[in-house]
């Protein structure tokens, strides 16, 4: 009986093709919007977590406190409060895999006739490990080169492209702040950071080299930051407390003094960002579902018209033995079919749009099975919810009145 009724519902929709399509339009737009939003939201979330993973997992970054010259505060990292010894001590802490001290010097870098303003980072070999950054071509510098202050440099992709274009930078010489550096390696591409900054626009040189030759004398032994790689995510908080305790003690800070350094926990940032993007995609999906509700009201409207138009048909059916339940079921099935068909088309349209959007913004905007099942479940509920009243109205008709119409 259900099969026959489904077939009848189908033929009723076909009989009013244009009207059925227009009725479904609300559902189509709503479902397509929800599918698209969930896909884009998912893509953004994936992008964010990937770029965070690209920073190195389980990473703590210790930054020097602000320096002061007279009344002016220099901002984080400008002070001379972090020293190389601090990094050595931090490396001793339980659960710390490696601690890489580093400093940053902005510099105009010259290669032959071309020059380029970039950041020169001075650090130790552990820097590459801690940041999970591997060399693409050539090699990175060794411990020995670092201690000796060798005049070598490893280039980020962007710098390599700007200075050397298509030619091979390996073995070439560049100059920064009057110091000649030999290019020994090119790093793999890392892409953008959170703020959209280009993380490949950088040169890495041995820390000793940077401190001696590039940085002013005043900060000889002082560094800007220490990247700390921690064994596991669970240990992050403990390590963070240990570092704070250790640095306060070695920096001889009194209980009333503020920290002259700061510790940033990337996992906390990751969590915040994930929560934020999840909230945003939920919001977008919520906006889409308003359109679904509007679509449902459209279905109810058309079903009410349909019941009125087909009053005589309902009377005939009742006269030849359709129970009220059967009449109700018939109209519910029609409403359900409208909403589910609309949903099907909406899923197709939404998936198509998500693919196009993915091409444009360069995200992976895959439509998940979860999103599709949610769309169908919601559409079915809407079909039944908004179909119920018209169907009940049909079922409540008096057969005599209905036949007379």
């Amino acid at each position, binding site marked *: *009986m259900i099969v*026959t009724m489904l077939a009848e519902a189908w033929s009723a929709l076909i009989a009013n093709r244009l009207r059925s399509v227009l009725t479904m339009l609300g559902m189509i737009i709503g479902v397509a919007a929800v599918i698209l939003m969930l896909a884009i939201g998912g893509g953004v979330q994936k992008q964010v977590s990937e770029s965070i993973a690209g920073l190195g997992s389980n990473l703590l970054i210790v930054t020097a406190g602000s320096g002061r010259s007279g009344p002016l505060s220099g901002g984080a990292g400008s002070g001379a409060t972090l020293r190389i010894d601090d990094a050595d001590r931090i490396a001793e802490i339980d659960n710390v895999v490696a601690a890489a001290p580093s400093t940053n010097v902005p510099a105009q870098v010259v290669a032959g006739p071309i020059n380029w303003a970039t950041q020169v980072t001075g650090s130790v070999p552990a820097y590459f490990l801690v940041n999970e950054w591997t060399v693409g071509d050539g090699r990175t510098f060794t411990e020995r080169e670092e201690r000796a202050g060798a005049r070598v440099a490893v280039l980020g992709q962007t710098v390599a492209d700007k200075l050397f274009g298509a030619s091979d930078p390996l073995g070439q010489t560049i100059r920064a702040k009057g110091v000649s550096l030999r290019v020994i390696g090119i790093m793999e591409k890392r892409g953008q950071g959170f703020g959209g900054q280009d993380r490949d626009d950088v040169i890495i040189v041995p820390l000793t080299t940077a401190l001696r030759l590039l940085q002013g004398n005043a900060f000889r032994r002082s560094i800007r930051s220490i990247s700390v790689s921690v064994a596991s995510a669970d240990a992050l908080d403990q390590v963070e407390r240990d570092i704070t305790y250790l640095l306060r003690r070695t920096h001889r800070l009194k209980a009333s003094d503020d920290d002259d350094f700061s510790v940033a926990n990337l996992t906390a940032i990751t969590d915040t960002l994930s929560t934020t993007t999840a909230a945003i995609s939920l919001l977008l999906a919520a906006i889409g579902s308003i359109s679904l509700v509007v679509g449902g009201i459209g279905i109810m409207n058309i079903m009410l018209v349909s019941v009125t138009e087909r009053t005589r048909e309902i009377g*005939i*059916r009742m006269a030849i033995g359709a129970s009220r339940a059967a009449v109700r079921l018939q109209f519910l099935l029609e409403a359900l079919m409208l909403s589910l068909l609309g949903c099907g088309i909406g899923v197709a349209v939404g998936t198509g749009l998500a693919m196009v959007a993915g091409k444009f913004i360069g995200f992976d905007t895959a439509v998940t099975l979860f999103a599709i099942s949610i769309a169908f479940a919601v559409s079915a509920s809407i079909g039944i919810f908004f179909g119920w009243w018209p169907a009940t109205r049909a079922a409540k008709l008096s057969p005599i009145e209905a036949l007379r119409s």
Partner: protein
Amino acid sequence: MTALLALDNVIKDYQSEAGTFRALDGVSLVVEKGELVSIMGPSGSGKSTLMNIIGCLDTPTAGIYRFDGTDTATLSETALARLRNAGIGFVFQQFNLLPRLSALANVALPMVYSGVAKRDRDMRAQTLLASVGIGDKPKSRPSQLSGGQQQRVAVARSLANSPELLLADEPTGALDTKTGIEVLALFRSLNEQQGVTVVIVTHDPEVARATNRVVRIQDGRVFYDGPPTEAALYGHAEGATA
């Protein structure tokens, strides 16, 4: 023979703004199984109301209506629907076929509601179409058929669940004379050969003449109940209630 229909002092009131209107005022009537009866009366006489009550489309305000021994007042809505489905076959003046369905699907529709499997109901529907003489047009829509053919489809549909009562409301009203005679002959043969009880509601004396018994209704009462004499057919047989 057991009485198929037994109306005992049936009263039907309608409420309107003008007050209560009594459409049936104490109708008592017994129809045995296998009878071929016509119910006559001018418009407003209450014959349509009587037909609705006999067809279980409406319920009496007072009095008892038994169908095949069962007091219909004791039946639920669903049970009444089942009775209309399998116990009674309706034939209407305007055929009342569903325009979207083929002739075959129209005939099969009552069997959908009684839960017959698709294969079986399609087979039976085809047999019924053949038995009313239009076995060659199962796929046609009602709009593609002539009035007579549509009424034959309607008769076939009314027989779908082998009902005990065939209830026809002005079955020839929308047909030309010749086709009307053919449809009436169909009713007669169903009555004589298959023993189906047939009740035809009509105002047409020529239709009533083809039946074995005439019940005349006037002002909500049975005015005449007896054989189709000329006087009965043309409304001069006053007080001849059997």
